[in-house]
């Protein structure tokens, strides 16, 4: 189990982490979600031992590891741009962690066999003799993962694991990583700025902003019960209705009477729904509404009345 207690970190005079506390259960898959500058990567790097906190502690199985160097923490870290060693083959990259061991370094043949095994696990068997420059982005990502797994980490940390990949590869790799996690059950934390990624993969999501944890919860809780206006905005789409009501586009429906008047500006098909863009007559705020594609679409220029099915209030 990983526990982070009251972590604080400053760069020069800027606070990047403020009083962060978090606990991760064995086998959990955790997402640190936030915009750039939210401190999520710094938190990940402190847990890894790549960065040092100013205050607070990091406990692994109840033991404070703050004084341990990254070498001794036994964490697998997958870097954003993979940081593969260019002058080594894929197999040498994967075997690196075993080959630098001072004590119980396995014999060469065993390291090679282990590298092959891991490459099979990440579905790259047969590519061991290639160099990183000869691989695609998705393949490099999996080599980086295999390399991190080779040291049999107690904890796997991934920094923006899909950040540098194009959309299609990203989606495939996401599915694959989720399956791999299920199969191995290794406690894992990954950093992302992509809410979809976080909601799809993680058991629990930690939403961060400006060095503070805004909410910790399951994807369902984060989406349905955002704890703060920031979470409501950052995760999913949100409309501002008067009286501090936050409503998702699909939680609005058209009513004959009552509700709020909306002047329709534009209507287009978005997947299985009509997306209606309009302006709230009262406040002039822009509103987005998703309507069942089976129902007739309102015409631009028309005024409709909408009412929330469910909403979240954050005061005035």
């Amino acid at each position, binding site marked *: 189990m990983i526990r982070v207690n009251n972590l604080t970190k400053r760069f020069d005079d800027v606070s990047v982490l403020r009083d962060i506390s978090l606990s991760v259960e064995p086998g959990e898959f955790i997402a640190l979600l936030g915009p750039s500058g939210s401190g999520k990567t710094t938190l990940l790097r402190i847990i890894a031992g790549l960065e*040092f*906190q100013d205050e607070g*502690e990091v406990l692994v199985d109840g033991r404070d590891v703050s*004084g341990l160097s*990254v070498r001794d923490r036994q964490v697998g870290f997958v870097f954003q741009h993979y940081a593969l060693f260019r002058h080594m083959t894929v197999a040498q990259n994967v075997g690196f962690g075993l080959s630098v061991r001072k004590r119980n370094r396995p014999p060469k043949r065993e390291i090679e066999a282990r590298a092959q095994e891991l490459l099979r696990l990440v579905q790259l068997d047969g590519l061991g003799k290639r160099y990183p420059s000869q691989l695609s982005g998705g393949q490099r990502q999996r080599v980086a993962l295999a390399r991190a797994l080779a040291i049999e980490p107690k904890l796997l940390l991934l920094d923006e694991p899909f950040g540098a990949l194009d959309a299609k590869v990203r989606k495939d790799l996401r599915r694959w990583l989720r399956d791999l996690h299920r199969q191995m059950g290794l406690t894992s934390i990954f950093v992302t700025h992509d809410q979809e990624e976080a909601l799809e993969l993680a058991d629990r999501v930690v939403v961060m902003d400006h060095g503070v944890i805004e909410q910790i919860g399951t994807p369902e809780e984060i989406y349905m019960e955002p704890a703060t206006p920031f979470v409501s905005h950052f995760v999913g789409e949100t409309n501002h209705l008067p009286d501090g009501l936050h409503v998702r586009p699909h939680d609005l429906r058209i009513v004959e009477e009552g509700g709020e008047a909306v002047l329709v500006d534009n209507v287009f098909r978005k997947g299985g729904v009509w997306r209606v863009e309009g302006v709230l007559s009262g406040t002039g705020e822009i509103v987005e509404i998703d309507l069942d594609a089976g129902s007739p679409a309102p015409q631009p220029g028309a005024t409709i009345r909408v009412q929330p099915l469910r909403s979240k209030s954050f005061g005035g």
Partner: protein
Amino acid sequence: MTSLSLSRGRWRQPSVLPGFGLTFGVSVIWLSLIVLIPLATIFLRSAGMGWSDFVAAGFSDRALAAYRLSFGTAAAAGLVNVVFGLLIAWVLVRYSFPGKRVIGALVDLPFALPTAVAGIALTTIYAPSGWIGQFLDPLGVKVAFTPLGITIALIFIGLPFVVRSVEPVLADMGLEVEEAAATLGAGRAQTFFRIILPSILPALITGFAMAFARGVGEYGSVIFISGNMPGKTEIAPLLIVTQLEQYAYDGATAIATVMLVVSFAILLLLNGYQTLRRRRMGA
């Protein structure tokens, strides 16, 4: 060890990479022993001379003539190099022609060729009976043993500074801005003077300043071709050597101090200029 609490005004960010103490220590000690302490002796010695002695030695008529010659020829050579260095960089970046790679490599020759070798070669070429000198002499043009010869040697020395400083900027500029200028109706000459030249001007200035600074201090390639007549073709570095040979250590020190101050001033101005530009361009 709960907290590795460090004071806020810390001097360096903590890092997991080991070896800062070792590498920083080695760097600073080696830098101090080889560069800083020896350089400091010049100023120490100057300070010990007293102001009037310093002025007498550092600004004598002979010294002033030497500065004029050194700075004048270095500036002249620098200007020639700005024009031709830009032309060569332009040709190397923009056009393709047979042997381009070899020509590109040849530009660095002055960096690689020992200055004394360049000096005797240039003298042989431009002496009155030399390869080129024999044609210039009947025309009344004397190159070797005149300020013109010194300028030619400094053109040789300074050329790569300008080419190598302009080349990457020109290459990075890309054709898009020029295409944009063309779509807006600019002619080729307008595009060059209003778009290209302003973009590469900082690189040109940097190249000129580096060539100039190098030219002012240059010794090996110049002394053979210069003739070394006091007051006429005696460059400042040669005057230092002459003073040293006469055991006039104070004289040598005073002249060296003046030259050092000028070089450092150029370096500072250049750094300041580049910082200012970076800030303004937000890059």
